């Protein structure tokens, strides 16, 4: 089976457009004797065409396929999840022979991680072959890609093939008591996935998930939304000032790292600082016009500090000894002040956004 040809496109306010003859079947979670998620059992399979559309709005009468109901119900398919990479989202849990990477926000609540005393505890016992095998099993049964284990010797992810080459639609009969039809669906490992807009293509680590539009209240009961209730509002999408902040944070860190080095190495790193500071200044200047008054004030001050950062870094490169140390300290202090000002601008913008949302 050529999985490279598998492709999923998210249509704007519409279905998932699947192409490449991706097989489709229901996968039911089977519990063990203790009632904990243990295995996938294949249920009904569907006669899938080479290309087909899967319902995303939850209103289709022919689920899992789309019947065009999204247009009638006025489905709003705006994506609200973070677009942060898994690598940046994931936390690392270090064990004797394995490392677990956990990106909590991806959780689909399949709960394969609970058996045997929870995977986060088991990871610490992976010098025991039985515990190691259980950790690998649990991570590989995770349908969401939240949990991935890496061998500590090879640093490579351990990913076993999904059963019969197709994971397809999964359904946990204990979930979604309210919506009933809210089943996460997946295709097999690693299909290419993209959005209908101009967003970059992304590749899911194991399988992709679908939560139908009707399951938002259901998802809340499972804890996903309780973390974000009332606090996400319109801030999920990173705007220009957030990007500027990342740039100034990185600049400050780069200067700190440079200062930690000795002699020539520190100087070589410092040579790049004026140019990086200039880039941050340009970035701020291009975004200032769209900000509110409070944010503008902080961004203007940030530019002043970044100019000072440039100056002190440039001076530092030309000096040595005590003068060099002084210049580096001033450069760090200026960069830190710039980060603080941009952070204040971000906070001002977020507060204004939260207030506006609350008024609505």
């Amino acid at each position, binding site marked *: 089976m050529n999985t490279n040809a598998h492709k999923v496109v998210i249509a704007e306010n519409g279905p998932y457009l699947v192409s490449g003859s991706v097989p489709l079947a229901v996968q039911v979670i089977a519990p063990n004797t203790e009632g904990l998620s243990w295995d996938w059992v294949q249920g009904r399979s569907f006669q899938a065409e080479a290309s087909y559309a899967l319902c995303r709005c939850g209103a289709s009468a022919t689920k899992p396929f789309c019947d065009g109901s999204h247009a009638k119900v006025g489905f709003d398919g705006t994506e609200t999840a973070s677009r942060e990479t898994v690598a*940046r989202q994931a*936390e690392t849990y270090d064990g004797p022979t394995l490392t677990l990477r956990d990106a909590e926000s991806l959780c689909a609540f399949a709960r394969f991680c609970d058996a045997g005393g929870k995977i986060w505890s088991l990871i610490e016992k992976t010098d025991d072959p039985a515990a190691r095998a259980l950790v690998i099993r649990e991570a590989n049964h995770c349908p969401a890609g939240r949990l991935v284990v890496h061998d500590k010797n090879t640093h490579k992810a351990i990913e076993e093939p999904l059963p019969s080459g197709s994971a397809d639609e999964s359904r946990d009969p204990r979930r979604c008591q309210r919506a009933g039809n809210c089943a996460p669906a997946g295709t097999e490992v690693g299909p290419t996935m993209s959005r209908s807009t101009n967003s970059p293509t992304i590749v899911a680590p194991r399988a992709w998930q679908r939560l139908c539009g009707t399951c938002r209240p259901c998802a809340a009961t499972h804890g996903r939304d309780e*973390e974000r209730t009332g606090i996400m509002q319109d801030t*999920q999408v990173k705007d220009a000032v957030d990007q500027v902040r990342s740039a100034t*944070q990185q600049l*400050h860190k780069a200067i700190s790292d440079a200062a930690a080095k000795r002699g020539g190495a520190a100087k070589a790193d410092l040579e790049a600082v004026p140019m990086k500071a200039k880039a941050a200044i340009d970035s701020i200047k291009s975004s200032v016009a769209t900000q509110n008054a409070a944010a503008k004030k902080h961004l203007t001050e940030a530019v002043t500090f970044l100019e000072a950062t440039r100056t002190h870094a440039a001076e530092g490169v030309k000096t040595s000894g005590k003068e060099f140390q002084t210049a580096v300290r001033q450069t760090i202090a200026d960069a830190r002040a710039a*980060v603080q000002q941009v952070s204040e601008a971000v906070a001002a913008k977020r507060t204004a956004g939260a207030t506006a949302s609350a008024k609505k």
Partner: protein
Amino acid sequence: MRNYVAVVFDDTSKAYEGLHALWQMDDEGAITVHGTTVVHRNDWGEYQVDSKDTHPALATAVGVGVGALLGALAGPAGAAIGAARGAAIGAASGGAVGAVADLNRADTRDESRYETGWVLGAGQSAVIADVSEDTTFPIDERMRRLGGSVHRRAYGDVRDDKWFGDYPYDYYLYPYEYVPPYSPWWA
């Protein structure tokens, strides 16, 4: 509103989970984090600032400042004691802040124990952060779930305590996102 928070945990790994959670909340837009650091207090009552995300040249300064910060979170009296205690550790480790430390040699072990009772007990770890938050709910709830207890004081109050020697009150916190040190995913 801008606040300083110290979230105290009984074990170090939880403190790093707390640190990471703060930056995640920032990423989600729930709060804005201006700076963070993690500090431990060993069984003998000494502060240990983890050098993982600490610039080596500033490590001793952080040792001094963190004592002051923890004290500041306990109020003005705590700030004085915290600064003195932190300075004593700075003196022990030498470095650029030795002069600051020398001014505070009057510290006594009794006072140190008094400060400890307010915020950070022996064997505990804390993540300290300078944050902007519209409500206290996101941090309180997330940290409660991680098993941490939150101490909070207004940024302006801490700033006005002025117990930070030659360094500004926010010098001891690092303004960039915490990234887990081992990331095989990127290999």
